[in-house]
């Protein structure tokens, strides 16, 4: 019996102690008419050897393409030590640190994580993480409503550079509490907020600013943060944590800094893994901490006066406050945060800055190489972080299909989210890409764009 240790003798003795004739008798409180026979929809069991063979076949089925897709999840080198340690049984198979004395490893790790992520975002306090970047925005929006009680509207204004899926997720999660999300006007030439057309009198409860934007450009975050404050709104920053090694931290935006920062923690040592598990980070100014959702770890002392760590401010949470909690959230993404903490420790600030700058420069090189091809140009001028949107002279979908035949996943077709941009492609090259990789992509693209290939694309 897989994973069940009982011998027939054990079972017999245990049933005798219970006073039950057989295992079936243990289910005698379930009404007979509800019982089922066999589970036909579940296949017969496989041994570890058999499932290993099956999974290897499936994992290998899709080849090993060169990937130039970003869009909110980024391929970075993950030091071998990160997951070697994070998957130690003591981290991997522990539960939420409710019994603090027996969970100091997890608790101290989270405390160190909170210290690192507040340093990186330039804000005062952090929680122990949320599910992912998109759901973190939903929680940040709900939190802003609780914090900013002077504003009666539940209107959240989104800079056009906010990831379109984040907006959809925020709407799905927070919409039923009456929050509405509206886009700020976009300057079509720059792809950024049209700062000359910022709306007056909308009474937003919060303004969301993403840096770098979904299309890789850089907003004037100081001006937007100050504008949010002038409107009486809180400012919510969404930032790629890798970028914060080179870009101004949200806590330093504008005159007073962003109120809340959140985003996708995946770039900090978490594998792409088809979309998860990742983790959402959230930090804020200290004055807002009691409205922050999710677990928080604090340092305190024990009976001997020695330092120790425990979950704190639990009076905000669902298991205490029930229907009046700040959120229904129960878990944090503990294992991913453990990995991120090890990742940040191994890289340090200098290492992270090197990852950021190498990614930024690789993407610039890739964009230059692709824009040398007739029919491809940059969609927006000006500085970018490690993603660049390109305008193509033909639909991106066909181009991507043709590139995939060359073993290259060439980026994101933006028409799915931003049809108004026409034939647009978003590309990304992180530090993992070599000159040869970039040359291979450019070579394949030249083939696709060669006059003879035009019909195919």
């Amino acid at each position, binding site marked *: 019996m897989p994973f069940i240790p009982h011998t027939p003798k054990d079972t017999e003795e245990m049933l005798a102690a219970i006073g039950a004739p057989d295992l079936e008798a243990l*289910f005698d409180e379930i009404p007979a008419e509800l019982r089922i026979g066999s589970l036909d929809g579940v296949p017969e069991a*496989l041994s570890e050897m058999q499932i290993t063979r099956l999974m290897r076949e*499936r994992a290998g089925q899709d080849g090993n393409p060169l990937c130039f897709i970003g869009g909110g999840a980024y391929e970075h080198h993950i030091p071998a030590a990160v997951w070697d340690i994070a998957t130690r049984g003591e981290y991997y198979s522990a539960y939420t*640190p409710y*019994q603090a004395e027996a969970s100091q490893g997890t608790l101290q790790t989270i405390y160190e994580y909170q210290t690192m992520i507040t340093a990186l975002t330039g804000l005062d306090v952090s929680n*122990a993480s949320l599910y992912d970047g998109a759901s973190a925005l939903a929680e940040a929006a709900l939190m802003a409503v609780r914090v900013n009680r002077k504003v009666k509207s539940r209107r959240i204004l989104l800079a056009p550079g906010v990831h379109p899926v984040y907006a959809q997720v925020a709407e799905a999660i927070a919409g039923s509490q009456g929050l509405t999300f509206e886009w700020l006007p976009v300057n079509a030439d720059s792809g950024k907020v049209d700062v000359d057309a910022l709306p007056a009198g909308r009474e937003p409860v919060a303004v969301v600013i993403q840096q770098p934007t979904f299309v890789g450009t850089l907003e004037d975050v100081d001006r937007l943060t100050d504008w949010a404050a002038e409107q009486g709104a809180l400012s919510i920053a969404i930032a790629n944590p890798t970028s914060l090694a080179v870009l101004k931290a949200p806590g330093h935006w504008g005159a007073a800094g962003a109120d809340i920062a959140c985003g996708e923690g995946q770039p900090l040592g978490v594998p792409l*893994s088809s979309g998860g598990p990742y983790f959402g980070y959230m930090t804020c100014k200290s004055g807002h901490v009691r409205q922050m959702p999710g677990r928080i770890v604090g340092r305190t002392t024990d009976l001997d006066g020695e330092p120790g760590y425990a979950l704190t401010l639990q009076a905000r949470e669902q298991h205490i406050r029930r*229907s009046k909690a700040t959120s229904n959230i129960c*878990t944090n993404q503990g294992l991913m945060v453990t990995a991120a903490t090890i990742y940040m420790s191994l890289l340090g600030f200098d290492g992270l800055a090197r990852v950021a700058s190498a990614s930024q420069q690789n993407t610039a090189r890739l964009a230059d190489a692709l824009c040398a091809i007739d029919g491809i140009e940059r969609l927006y001028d000006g500085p970018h972080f490690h993603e660049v949107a390109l305008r193509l002279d033909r639909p991106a979908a066909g181009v991507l299909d043709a590139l995939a035949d060359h073993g290259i996943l060439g980026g994101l077709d933006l028409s799915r989210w931003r049809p108004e941009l026409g034939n647009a492609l978003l590309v990304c090259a992180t530090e993992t890409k070599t000159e040869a990789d970039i040359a291979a992509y450019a070579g394949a693209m030249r083939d696709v764009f060669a006059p003879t290939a035009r019909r195919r694309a």
Partner: protein
Amino acid sequence: MLDKLIFEKSRSGRRAFAQAPAGDDIADIPDALRRGDRPVLPEASELQTVRHFTRLSQKNFSIDTQFYPLGSCTMKYNPRACNSLALLPGFANRHPLGPASHGQGFLTCMYELQEMLKAVTGMQGVSLTPMAGAQGELAGVAMIRAYHKARGDHERNEIIVPDAAHGTNPATATMCGCVVREIPTGPDGDVDIEALRSALGPKTAGIMLTNPSTLGVFERHIADVAALVHDAGGLLYYDGANLNAILGKVRPGDMGFDVIHMNLHKTFSTPHGGGGPGSGAVGVNRRLLPFLPIPVVGRDDVDGEPVYRWLEEEDVPQSIGRLSGFMGNAGVLLRAYVYMRMVGRDGMQRIAEYATLNANYLMARLADAGLELAFPGRRASHEFIITLRKDARQYDLTAMDVAKALLDRNYHAPTTYFPLLVPECLLIEPTETESKETLDGFVDALVAIVEDARHNGKTYKDAPYTMPVRRLDDVKAARQLDIRFDGE
């Protein structure tokens, strides 16, 4: 005694040199947008980092090192193969926005996982996207709301929740813009049917139930509850926290539930990871199919061959929408898939049988030893409740004291002070993966603690004694908030 923080072990200028790529100058970003300060991240060597976090891990209790009978959490063994196979390079390196043409292996697993979950729950559709049980609840209640709205039934905004429910249930209902109506539990642990009857009405959106309940007993009147709620125009939500107890024996769909969430990190043995990631897949019956959260994996047949793809907005136009940036906790789903394939059809029933055997055996032995059961005369499901209310009164022995004393005997504590309606309670869930010897050892430890208090006047106010720290000052933690290291 704790280790220093990694920041206190740092030395300016030290680095893990093998990990940093060659950097580049970034001349084309204007100064106004650049970072001017130098945030304090660790400066440590690779060995220091490895040693630091290895040592920290050793300060945890975990399933791999201790018996962990945490009620309502299903802390069963997490098979190693589930982890190593989910981290195969072809899975770990796949970009979430990669084309379906380069994801057929992964999508096949996801589609088959959906099908297996439908089979074990008796539901007609499954979405894997919710990232934790609480997010599954959010999806479920949002679907109930969407269902009523689609029928023009805009007044239905009340969610009925028994007083024994997990805190996430009422918190979720609030998040979905609903009003919570709490109903009491009868003395035998079943729902108070008369209280339910009077709570139902034209504003009823639905009821959220855990079955077996958090009291560790099966709701015997579930068919009546379902009929009453459906007759009143409401829907039934199944909180899958305790699904392990009934796998292959009885299915939520057959009990009359319209929507369920499953905690894959409980029933299907994906890791708890020190507090996450979880995974809260949802299942629905036919009437809620149009509202499932996206993406869902669909299957087309192309020239007789199956081809898998994501179903998105255009395929599920009435969907409650997206709950994650990409595709939920995909890597967790792969682990659950591997687990279910290894357990197989017959293994599902064995899980319920041996989880229930272990719980009833522990319950019988502890009752024989003189501990008080919260619901004597009832069969335990996969968990049961001991109450220490008399010991707390007579010997000043609280559930908290027992929990801490167990740590000193190298057992993780059961869940304490939940459910809220049983005073001084221990909610004990052994799971099917524990052996009789382990259970016997736990009984001996627990009985010894209680007997020492009853007969020898021993107290455990200062326990634990053998952990890396002594009992911690929670009040100070909340009042003198220290939630990041400031260099002192």
